[in-house]
């Protein structure tokens, strides 16, 4: 039996492609695991400012996002708007309500790790950002992250 196998192997000089699917599957799994699908459609334009002293946001499941910037669609005008989840909010009070709901729905031990990521367009005025920070304080969502792009050029 063994002899037979050896013989046939010798005669065949082509590279075996039997492991090709396995290799491709490995790559596939790698990309499946590292992929983060964009889950919200941005309604506002956000170009974050540059910074050098940045930290990474580690656990994506513990991060909630607020987007602030001018609407992409011109029919909503040019004025800075706030987007949470998939829609614009109509009043600032919605922020603290939203943040409170998120905190309540989390198990107690996760609550202090919750981070609110502020994705703010760089030309936004601070007034609206300050208002949002005040709303988050009301809801006790105290850990925030000013989203930036890492830029090493001016270091």
């Amino acid at each position, binding site marked *: 039996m063994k002899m037979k196998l050896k013989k046939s192997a010798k005669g065949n000089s082509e590279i075996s492609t039997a492991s090709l699917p396995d290799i491709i599957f490995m790559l596939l799994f790698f990309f499946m695991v590292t992929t983060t699908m964009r889950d919200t459609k941005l309604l506002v334009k956000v170009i974050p*400012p540059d*910074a050098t*002293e940045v930290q*990474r*946001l580690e656990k994506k499941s513990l991060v909630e996002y607020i987007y602030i910037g001018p609407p992409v669609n011109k029919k909503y005008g040019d004025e800075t708007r706030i987007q949470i989840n998939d829609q614009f909010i109509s009043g600032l009070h919605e922020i603290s309500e939203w943040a409170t709901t998120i905190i309540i729905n989390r198990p107690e031990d996760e609550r202090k790790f919750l981070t609110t990521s502020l994705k703010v367009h760089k*030309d936004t005025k601070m*007034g609206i950002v300050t208002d949002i*920070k005040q709303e988050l304080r009301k809801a006790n969502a105290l850990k925030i992250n000013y989203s930036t*792009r890492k830029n090493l050029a001016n270091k």
Partner: protein
Amino acid sequence: MSKKITEISAGSMADIAFLLLIFFLVTTTMDVDVGITRILPPPLLDSTKIIVERRNLMNIWINKSDRIQVNENEVQVEDIRQLVAEFLANDDFRIEETPPSMPEKKPKAIPLLGQQVYVSKGIISLKNDRGTSYEMYVRVQNELAAAINKLREDFSEKQFGIRYSQLSDEAKLKAVQKQFPMAISEAEPAIIGGN
């Protein structure tokens, strides 16, 4: 002749996998979220006033046209790093005396460093106008973080022989952070006339 056992051809497996692979390659966004993390102060109770001595305080104002004032002088954003680093410097953390131009120090017990070491009482107070641009605000925050990180780097290098950014020991990280805290205070927003 056992022809009945017909295997499914695995030849197309690679193609199917390729197809899926290409799909994920296209949809993947590899960008990691980065940013400057800050902890907001808890909501203020009615009559809590914290009085800070003048020498322990460094005021930074950013006005609506993005011009910056530190204490009495107008400065450029690039100068902030140096000013803050000098203000919060704590060259010998084992002695309490400081020159009158520098903030006071308070005794503290920090594991790994000692039962009684002295931490600077200096606080950076950052105030901005409603009309300040977010970009400038983040630049200033970035400079503040850079100044404190610089102090931490140097301290860690001197104390433990490893750069702060290279430290992996949780206890040492905590010690450095306690010695040089992120002492940034943001004022309660006040309504100042005009935008």
